[in-house]
């Protein structure tokens, strides 16, 4: 699903250059549940933004579903992102001026889904995430847990192949956090590929694999509780020798 080769991202002003990602080789297979961990400022979010096609790398290769997208222009990235990737953010990122229903509707509008079908899909999704009774409410009228469920509904509404969740439980209490994790696990079990950034070792452990990032490098990889060797080793070696 995702494969990067020597992926590098440098942020720079005229005076100072910061290497956020330093020649990273990283892979996520279809159906995998990967957790990315690391201290603040270790460029976890930068990695997420690039694999989410929100940002582009300075150098290196980046294959999304077999296509090299490293050199894609913004419009091409947008086109590929549309419907294929769902984002869940720590700060929910709901539009305050839109109500629950309208927020969830956004990705379908981008896809130009016809009205009647749109309505059906949204109703279904709201039902599934148990927020249909709140559909006329605005984000500010909801609890954090409810807001995150709306954000998840929005991420899932197009049935994306890949869900990127950047600290989805970071702003939630443990009960609500647990709920979110359960939703993600369920999705994964239904076949959706998931990459999650988290500070919680407990949450990370529920992934197939944990990637530890430090200062722009991947320092360790370990396997989570869901790890199954059979799945991983049926494919050839992932990374070329350094």
């Amino acid at each position: 699903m995702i494969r990067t080769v020597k992926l590098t991202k440098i942020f720079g002003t005229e005076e100072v250059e910061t290497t956020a990602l330093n020649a990273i080789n990283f892979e996520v297979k279809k159906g995998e549940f990967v957790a990315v961990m690391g201290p603040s400022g270790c460029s976890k979010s930068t990695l997420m933004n690039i694999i989410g096609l929100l940002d582009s790398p300075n150098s290196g290769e980046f294959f999304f579903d077999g296509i090299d997208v490293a050199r894609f222009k913004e419009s091409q990235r947008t086109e590929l992102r549309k419907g294929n990737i769902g984002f869940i953010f720590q700060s929910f990122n709901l539009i305050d001026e839109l109500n629950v229903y309208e927020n969830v509707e956004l990705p379908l509008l981008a896809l130009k889904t016809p009205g009647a079908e749109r309505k059906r899909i949204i109703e279904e999704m709201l039902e599934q995430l148990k927020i249909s009774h709140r559909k006329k409410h605005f984000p500010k009228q909801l609890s954090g847990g409810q807001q995150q469920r709306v954000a998840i509904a929005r991420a899932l509404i197009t049935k994306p192949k890949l869900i990127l969740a950047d600290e989805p439980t970071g702003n939630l209490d443990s009960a609500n956090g647990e709920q979110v994790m359960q939703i993600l696990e369920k999705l994964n079990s239904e076949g959706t590929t998931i990459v999650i950034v988290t500070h919680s070792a407990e949450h990370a452990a529920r992934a197939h694999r944990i990637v530890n990032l430090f200062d722009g490098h991947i320092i360790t990889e370990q396997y989570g509780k869901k790890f199954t060797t059979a799945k991983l080793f049926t494919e050839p070696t992932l990374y070329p020798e350094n």
Partner: protein
Amino acid sequence: MFKQFFTLAIRNILKDKLFSFINFTNLVIGFATFILVALIINEELSWDKGNENYDRIYRLQLFMDEPASTTQHTWSVTAALSRHDLVKLPEIEKIALLHDVSDNNMEGVFLSPDKKNQFLIRYGYFSDQSIFDILTFKFLEGDMQKALTQPNSVVLSKTVANKLFPSEKAIGKVVYGENKVQFTVTGVYADFAANTSLTPQYLLPMASFGPISNFKDYETNYWAYAFYTYVLLKPNANPANVDKQIFSALKDYRKEHHPYLRPLSMLHLNPYFQKDYHIFLSIISATALFILILSSINYINLQTANATTRLREIGIKKSVGFSKKMLLRQFVGESVLSSFVSGLLGIYLAQLSLPLFNKIIGSNMLTSVFDSWSLLGIILVVTVITGILSGLYPAYVIASYNPVKALKQKFVQDDANGFSLKKALIVIQFSISLFLLIVSFIVYKQTNFMTTMNLGYNHNNLLYANVTTYKVGSFEQVRDRLLQHPEIEDACYSNYVPYILPGGDVLSWEGAKSDDKVFVRISKVSYDYQTTFKMQIEQGRNFSREYADKNSCMINETATRIFNWKDPIGKSMKVFGKDYTVIGVMKDYYPQSPHNAIEPHLFRLMADSVGLTGLYTIRFAPGKEQKAMQIVKDEFERSYPEDVARFKDYEHLVNMDNANKGWEMFRNITIFLAILSIIISSIGLFGLVMFYAKRKLKEIGLRKVFGFSLGSLYYTMTSGFISYILLSVLLAWPAGLYVYRNLPGATKYPLQIWEFLLATAITLIVALLTISFQVLKASQVDPAQILKDE
């Protein structure tokens, strides 16, 4: 998609009410102003369009090819041209000859229903019946087909009919003209709209002109330039062909004079190929456009600044797959929506402020915004275009945000020192406001200069009346009796006075090359004309009772200059076939508004034994107007018992002058527009500084922590804006100077730097006040609070 577009747009408008209020006020005022000015322009362009044959109607005019003359065009032509030359031309369908009943009398002549109740009525014409085939009349009473076919018939406008015969039908009634001529009403027509160049109040048959005026051979006379001619061309006829054929029609009489046709569409705006009116209208239109640009710039700046509040929305939309094009469409769409709504509100505001605006421009011509649907259509198109143009840049900025930064709600700081569109727009905005302010000052000073300047005579403390009488005899006795009263200082009698412009003739002079000729204004005055008006004698002497001045004349300074006479006294002038000796040179005075150049002028003595029809001017002692009025009234009632002499304050003539009125309207409108431009700029600045201050809160907080004074905070916040104003001086001052140089009119007030300095100071002060409000508010912040928020 549309539903969400509208809900989002409306909720965003309601989200920040102060911002939306500023934003909409700005656009609404901009559009309302644009609409009001568009109404004026539309009104100016709509003149005479009420005529069904608008495109085929022409007026006969003369081009007088005399380079030394100021007056080179006239529509006073000879009757013989119509009767002999035009009738032969195949292109012409109808010709109507007219003669102004009141002639040189600007006040009009008296009509009465019963010999007693006299009504002074202007714009009466002797006319051919064919005028009804050319201009569009709507008859309310009588038969238009034969209304002017019988001698001594009269056709009245509705207004005149109502004046003379209130509450009864006018048709068949008798109307008495001055000198007691009797007419029978054969028709009543609806009043002409205000935007009509020829507005007859009543018409008399041309057949009556000869007998009444005792001018029997007028139809064969090629010398009397006293008639107006309107022509209807056949469909598809080319007026240039007509011009070609009549170009030399006067070669046997005055070979320098060439008749031509001027289309009806030009009669109001530019009858004589002069730019004056066009300059006025251009400046006003440009100003309106500038104000719309100001509003658009405000919109662009405010929208761009406000984009920071939409960062999250942009980030989210981009992350779920909205393309840049979709976002661009959304934000341009929002600005078109705002602009369109503002346009509608602007139309409403314009309609509400129409009475006030009419008062400002001193007219009552603008009746309703909803009179012209095509204009409204154009305005709505303009609102959409404004919306697109002013929405494009902010939309582009917004849609181009990097989604990652947008989601982090990080505002991309624009380059602090380099060129940025926003800075350029602010400079343009200040330049426009400053420019408009300078122009309004220039026009203000010019108008005041013209209306208060020394015109070469004293028009205060004068009474005047135009008297039509059969009486022949001495005015001297009347004058002697008047002067016995201490309230009366002087009195004179003449056929023209300043502001009632005499005609003239093309004259040659001693020492002129054979071809040199110039148009000279000619008037007749009594001995005391010069002293009554307090005009100055430059050389020689005034007409005097001690000399036999029957064959003497006076000329003005301009005439001596054009004739190039070093010693004019004793020189001879041939006027209407008679020789006159120059006895004196009158110091130049303005015979009409100083907007018009002074032309050569020749004065002959009004012999004391002639008919006493003419203008009587009385100078009264200062402060004695009421008393003097009574004395004059009593004297004229006694001396002219048969006639009407209605004296008026001379200022009436000054105020009625078209050029003076035009300038006053121009002055009022430019001041009005300049004030609006300052208001709009301030609104924009207010909004902009509001955002700027929000962004600078952290800096202000830090500075406060380090103990900076309010003064230095103020300096940090304002120095940028002040430098923009100073930069705009570089654009606005030369533009202002350009306008001054191109002001229409013969006289210009001496330019001073004060207009420019004052305008700059005002712009600066208004800007500083606007900024100060925000700066003071921002400096009230609690630094601890701000820094904690970071």
